């Protein structure tokens, strides 16, 4: 399932990149791969699990493209898991840092044709995500859940800068272990055009997710809150 999701994600990316027509007034954060620093905190009411936190996984694999359409493809958890395969096979991971999309997408439409001014968009979110709710050591041993939601997108070009913000809400479901789950997010982006069409961008992101679920270790009904704050950094294309 995870491999299929990843392949579908990569093929979709290829199709998007192939058919996407060049447009003005936007930017494409091509974190393919990108870097990430930050922390994840998991608070549970399960005495066996307790509260734990860890540094966010370093490499990310995602595309966040704002033009006339807003397109986001998040393969972060899958890619982090893949990069840790050697360590995981040798039991050298203290904890899995896989968080976010095994294969998650967002599709939105930016309203307005004045590309020099602030534009606002609306979008839907869908896909397969994961959080380390069970303090698992191996990334691909984590359980996944379906995410479905929506959000707003804002984009403002300022000279060589491109500034974006995204807010949204998602519901998380997996009948096998989640009774209820939901979360919201805020993502900002500041991109700087350095050379020709290219530059770099920084994306500060905040995610808050709440779950009522059955813990993997003892099957106990557990409430968990996953709070993530990360700064993502990567190469960005402007148009």
């Amino acid at each position: 399932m995870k491999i299929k999701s990843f392949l579908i994600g990569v093929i979709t990316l290829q199709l998007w990149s192939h058919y996407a027509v060049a447009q003005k007034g936007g930017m494409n954060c091509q974190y393919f791969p990108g870097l990430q620093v930050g922390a994840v905190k998991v608070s549970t009411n399960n005495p066996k699990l307790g509260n734990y936190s860890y540094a966010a996984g370093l490499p990310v694999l995602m595309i966040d493209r704002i033009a006339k359409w807003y397109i986001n493809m998040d393969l972060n958890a899958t890619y982090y898991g893949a990069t840790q395969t050697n360590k995981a096979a040798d039991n050298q991971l203290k904890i899995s840092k896989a968080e976010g999309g095994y294969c998650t997408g967002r599709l939105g439409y930016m309203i307005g044709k004045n590309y020099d001014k602030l534009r606002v968009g609306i979008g839907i979110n869908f896909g397969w995500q994961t959080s380390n709710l069970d303090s698992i050591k191996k990334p691909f041993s984590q359980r996944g859940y379906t995410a479905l939601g929506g959000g707003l997108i804002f984009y403002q070009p300022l000279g060589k800068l491109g500034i974006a913000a995204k807010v949204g809400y998602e519901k998380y479901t997996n009948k096998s272990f989640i009774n209820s789950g939901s979360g919201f997010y805020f993502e900002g982006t500041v991109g700087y055009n350095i050379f020709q069409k290219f530059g770099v961008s920084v994306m500060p992101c905040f995610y808050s997710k709440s779950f009522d679920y059955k813990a993997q270790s003892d099957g106990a009904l557990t409430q968990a809150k996953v709070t993530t704050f990360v700064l993502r950094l990567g190469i960005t294309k402007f148009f």
Partner: protein
Amino acid sequence: MKKIILLILVITASAQIKAQSVSWTVLKDNPLDHRNFTACIDPLFIDINGNNGYTFGWGARAEYMMGKLFLMNFDFRSGFGTNGYKISDKNTKNYTYLEGGIGIIFSKSQYSKHVPIVLSQSSSTSYGYGYSVTTTTTKYIRGGVPAKHLSIWAFRAGLISMSNSLNYKNLADSLVKFKGNGSDFTFKDSVGNKHFQTGFGALTTVSLYGGIHSRIIRQLQIDVDGWGYRENSRYKDVYLDLLFAPVISITDFTSAGKTYDVQYDKVSHFGWRMGFANRHPKDQGFNFKFEFGVRPGPKAQDNKAMVNFKNWYCMFTYALYFPMKIKPTFEDQKRTAE
């Protein structure tokens, strides 16, 4: 019978090609106006091979067409999912690949050839009892559109250094010899000795390669009446190399405090490979590289064929690439010559 009917249905229905007469305006038809330097970040490659089964990881590539005479290429890959490799096991090695090469262009030509332009494509699926048929309808411009091509042929040569984990069990177990400490024995003889049953060691090769490289560049952009902007652009590479490895080294095996020199009697110092790569001549985007062949290294006891199944491989990598224009370019030198 049902399967045959289904197959015929699928084959006949899968590509109903309809053409129609249209007119168009050429916006650009210049293969010389390309970016001659490519830098690639490969977030994920996969190498399926006879040494250790599979490896996936990341890499970086660069390629430079220096004027009208030289090609240069660089390729680096490192595994983060190397089958059989354990960080804590010093007998194994992670997949590491380094290649650098140079080419000399011996033939360059420009010609015009009709290329297909897709106007529209749609798919529909119809379901019957126990089967489904997907019909893809593609509308092309009848006969294609003439496009200028730049064709380049080059001789190339270079150096490859590669390390990988090695699955002893894939080799002839009676030919893998552990020598040293006064007790020489084969991998076959080690059955039952837990110190020798990890199954994996490591292989390092240093190879020289030489071969032929073909590059075709076209950049056709047209405005089709009633359909709008359409494009058929390619920066396509195909190469075929012979490999010679003066150095084929199986890493010493250390177990229970004793180090053994691991030897394998049947090795081939020669190999071959064929590869493909593709990108847009000017735009930044995603590209791929696919390569397959036989690397120098261990071979089966009686193997005399070109395909050495002990050391075959195919590699696919998918990259984010950045094309740049770095002088001297092919176009600059052509203008100077004119």
